[in-house]
């Protein structure tokens, strides 16, 4: 089975976000970048499919030079091949998906695995966008996957329950927590990954479709009324919620 896993590099969730002087992007200075947590599930699922069906797992990322670090993590976890697509300074989710689609067309994968969302821009669109660009089926929020021959049976999380979904290979799958427990790379594998080759792929276009006009830090509009725990406080608290905030 020819498996492609898409991974992205994102700021550590606790990173302090500062807007650049132009007011339209985040200032990357001082931010620690990590592998998008959901993409660990995608890598793990790719490795498990290879263990079951044999084949190769390729990890691809669209990003700058520093994104090679997450490819090394993927190599340490056990992927066979790592590919970086250097993106233009101005990119959006569409251009990233288009870049990946260009590469995927050369690879001809049976299955493309992604994380449910990247935790920086939370755009939650890559599986659908890539699926449509590749003219492949796409399913997101997948927490259970079973492949038999070319039949693909999945469960995805929906409001208040689960949806069972079927499709066939080739397809694009966005995975969610619950599908597996990602392995931790072992120290010798981390060392070996440092010297493994990383391929570069040049995309055909850098077309974008969405533009960030400005970025800002939201001002808190919260009431901020904090009380103690006496009976009188609790009575006042309930009155505030019921009468002032009309919250219930």
């Amino acid at each position, binding site marked *: 089975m020819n498996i492609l896993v898409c991974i992205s590099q994102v700021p550590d969730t606790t990173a302090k976000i500062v807007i650049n002087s132009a007011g339209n992007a*985040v200032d990357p200075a001082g931010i620690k970048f990590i592998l998008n947590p959901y993409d660990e599930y995608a890598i793990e699922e790719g490795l498990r499919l290879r263990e079951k069906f044999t084949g190769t797992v390729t990890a691809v990322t669209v990003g700058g030079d520093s994104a090679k670090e997450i490819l090394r993590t993927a190599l340490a976890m056990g992927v066979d091949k790592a590919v970086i697509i250097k993106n233009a300074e101005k990119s959006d989710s569409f251009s990233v998906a288009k870049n990946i689609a260009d590469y995927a067309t050369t690879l001809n994968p049976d299955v493309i695995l992604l994380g449910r969302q990247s935790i920086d821009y939370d755009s939650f669109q890559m599986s659908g966008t890539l699926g449509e660009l590749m003219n492949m089926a796409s399913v997101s929020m997948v927490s259970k996957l079973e492949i038999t021959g070319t039949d693909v049976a999945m469960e995805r999380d929906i409001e*208040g329950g689960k949806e069972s979904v079927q499709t066939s290979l080739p397809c694009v799958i966005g995975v969610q*927590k619950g599908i597996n427990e990602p392995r931790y790379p072992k120290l010798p594998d981390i060392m070996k990954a440092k010297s493994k080759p990383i391929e570069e792929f040049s995309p055909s276009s850098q077309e974008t479709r969405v533009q960030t006009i400005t970025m800002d830090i*939201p001002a808190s509009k919260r009431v901020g009324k*904090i009380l103690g725990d006496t009976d009188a406080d609790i*009575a006042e608290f309930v009155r505030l919620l019921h009468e002032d905030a009309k919250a219930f």
Partner: protein
Amino acid sequence: MKIAVFIETHNAQGIRSAKEALTAARSLNAEIVGITTSNADALHQFAEYGLTTCITVSHDLLATYSSTAIASAVAQAAKSANANVVMFGGNASGKEIAPRVAVKLQAGYIPDVVEVQDANGALQCVRPVFAGKAREHVKATTTVTVVTLRPNVFTAKAVGGGAVTTSAFTPELTGNDAKVKTTGVTRNEGKLDVLEADIIVSGGRGMKGPEHFTLVEDLAKPLGAAVGASRAVVDAGWRPHGDQVGQTGKTVSPSLYVACGISGAVQHLAGMSSSKVIVAINKDKEAPIFKVADYGIIGDVFEVLPKLTAKIKEVTGK
């Protein structure tokens, strides 16, 4: 501006996120048309929220629910209506369909929108990014814009409607469009999901153990609330994974969110900071949750929660 709003029903019930999308569309100076693949009989439920015209899409291949077939059908209908904005509620199905519709219409796609605005005839949107630590103001550079709206942010407002004028549309679909098929849906019976609840009461590590979540459930009951949880307690196995609120759990925006014994880590805030009213009960007055709270009690959940539940029962009579 001409906005096509995706009108969705589940078992003939008009879903809330579609009503919210109608409300958001109405806040703009625009012509609005609905697009539905559901039965026209259900449309009166949307008239109340301002739907006056609707394209009813039908095709044999839409008989079994297929997200890919619906995406093809909606894209064709939106094109036939010359819509320059296509709006979806950001529920699980909207998020699945919208990106495919955007590619088909060569449209810019803006997900997880919390504010919409008419900027000289073009749609401009605000969306939270970096776990809610920043917001971006974005617009598409294409002729058509596709958006999904974060659920529960645009409160659906009834306007008292009349009849809905419908026009039938038959899309051109082949088996290739129906690549993905839904074969079944399992509901968590008897349990309100945090994604569907108007009020959520969540518990964190401060509850000290799974057996004490009865205190959280007791408070949830008179409020008609769903019970949520922080990741710390989900990871500890105290609560099911589906209850987790936060960056790696569910993103919720209820009208009231009550955090009991939750510190308010940034990843938790990412999932609930757009709630309308936030309430915290925590014994540590320095807990970060108080920085985002509208109302708070500094106290021990084991003493405060029973008293709070009793007081709320007095008010609601439940």
